């Protein structure tokens, strides 16, 4: 007789996790993604110099994860209770595991940023007190970089695991979500760091680092699209709950965010700017920044869509 009785009311009003969490997922993805890509390139090409792309990535990774933490803390019902998450642990909880990863990741990102930006720090007298610290920690740089690469990927993936543990939301409760979040984190993180590398650290838009990135962009974007397709297919062919959640893709305002934001801007934007415009424009700096912005905003829309549309369609 199970299933003959249901209730639709609840004790909490609205969605449990509102936009600050989506913004946090966005920042964490950019942070982990940018740093992973930079370190991949660094290890792959066995670079020892501080390349503009590494500088930009380290700076972005640090700033975004700091802003992300701010979002997380401000979203607590009482931000002053934040210490409790740091003191009490439950290893069954993805969030607790994430806290452990973040508390190693954040200081390490700060360290990587110190090393990467050493020249800049030398130039600013205000930051001089940091120099002895950099010298002292220098022997740890290599191992720190290796460790932070693992942690950066872990942070990207954990944001996916964090929400995929919510069993009542078919759009969110899927094992593909962490993979989707890693892929979109890598692409948006790389796009953000690329823009900063060119804009602030005077990287040549046609340097070999940029060439590698340009080559990696499309396969990553393809993987992202594939993961999204997998989620959609599993909803369409799934049970009644999954099928009703599929509605999120064709009704309501969140479906607009998906089709215009994620698909149109996020995937369509960079594709059009690179392949549908003339050689002259697609190699211009406007096209470069525009397609970077498209990738980053598409990813923000993706996080918003998953979190809101996901929570709106409960079973």
């Amino acid at each position, binding site marked *: 007789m199970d299933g003959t009785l249901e*209730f639709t009311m609840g004790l909490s009003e609205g969605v449990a996790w509102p936009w600050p969490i989506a913004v946090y997922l966005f920042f964490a993805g950019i942070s982990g993604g940018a740093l992973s890509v930079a370190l991949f390139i660094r290890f792959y090409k066995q670079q020892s110099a501080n390349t503009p792309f590494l500088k930009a990535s380290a700076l972005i990774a640090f700033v975004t994860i700091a802003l992300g933490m701010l979002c997380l803390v401000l*979203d*607590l019902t009482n931000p002053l209770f934040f210490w409790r998450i740091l003191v009490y642990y439950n290893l069954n909880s993805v969030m607790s595991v994430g806290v452990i990863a973040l508390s190693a990741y954040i200081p390490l990102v700060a360290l990587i940023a110190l090393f990467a930006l050493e020249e800049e720090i030398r130039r600013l007298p205000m930051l001089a007190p940091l120099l002895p610290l950099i010298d002292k920690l220098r022997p740890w740089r290599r191992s720190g970089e290796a460790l932070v690469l693992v942690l950066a990927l872990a942070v990207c993936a954990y944001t996916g695991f964090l929400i995929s543990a919510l069993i009542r939301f078919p759009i969110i409760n899927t094992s593909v979500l962490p993979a989707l979040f890693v892929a979109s984190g890598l692409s948006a993180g790389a796009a953000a760091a690329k823009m900063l590398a060119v804009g602030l650290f005077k990287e040549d838009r046609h340097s070999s680092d940029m060439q590698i990135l340009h080559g990696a962009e499309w396969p990553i974007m393809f993987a992202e699209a594939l993961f999204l397709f997998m989620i959609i297919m599993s909803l369409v062919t799934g049970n009644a709950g999954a099928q009703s959640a599929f509605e999120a893709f064709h009704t309501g305002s969140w479906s607009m965010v998906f089709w215009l934001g994620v698909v149109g801007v996020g995937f369509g934007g960079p594709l059009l700017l690179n392949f549908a415009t003339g050689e002259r424009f697609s190699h211009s700096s406007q096209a470069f920044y525009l397609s970077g912005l498209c990738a980053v905003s598409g990813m923000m829309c993706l996080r918003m869509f998953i979190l809101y549309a996901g929570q709106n369609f409960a079973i």
Partner: protein
Amino acid sequence: MSENIERRRFLKCLGAGSLMLAPLGCSVKEQTAQDAAPHYVMVFDQNKCVGCGGCKEACNKANNLPEGRSRVVLEQQSSAVAGQACPHCGKTDCDCQRKYVRVSCQQCQNAPCVSVCPTGAAHRDPKTGIVTMDASKCAGCKYCIAACPYNARYINSETDVADNCDFCLQSKLAKGELPACVQECRYDALVFGDANDPNSYVSRLLAVKDSVRVKAHLGTEPSLRYIPIVKLGV
């Protein structure tokens, strides 16, 4: 009266108001040590509930909740289809058919709120197995609220931490009483007790009545049982 039988039994089990003794006190001769662990369940009989809301008020008082807040709400349902004649009285617009459903924490045996809580604030009481809160550990992250498939948790606006129905574990049960809502219900719509004890009133009730669990397919193993209204006619 079922409530009284149940209360007497319950008081006997709890001994001198000490919940710790419950598993020991309850073990009747033929029970062995391992099946002495209690499984507290609540039965909501839809046939008896009139929607008076007494349970909500009792909950509010017993657990010192903010004005207007209880850990339980009642959803009114009707099998009438809008625009069609009521199957009961035949009018197109009536309010004659009322049935209520208790909405509250389902006390899952496999509780998502407990497994996601990063601090262990949402936890299972080791002695009774009841899902309850350690308010001093809750960080207010709302992970449990997002995770609960029954939307049965909320943030207490006075304490800023999450809260759920715990069968009055910290208020009434600690004193050896039945949950406040069960005590209050004048229509006998609520029954509470240990389903692992074959002699308890709930066990005997569940043995003879068809009961259902809400969203049992999610695998959360809810401890709330509902006796639905058996549809008449149509």
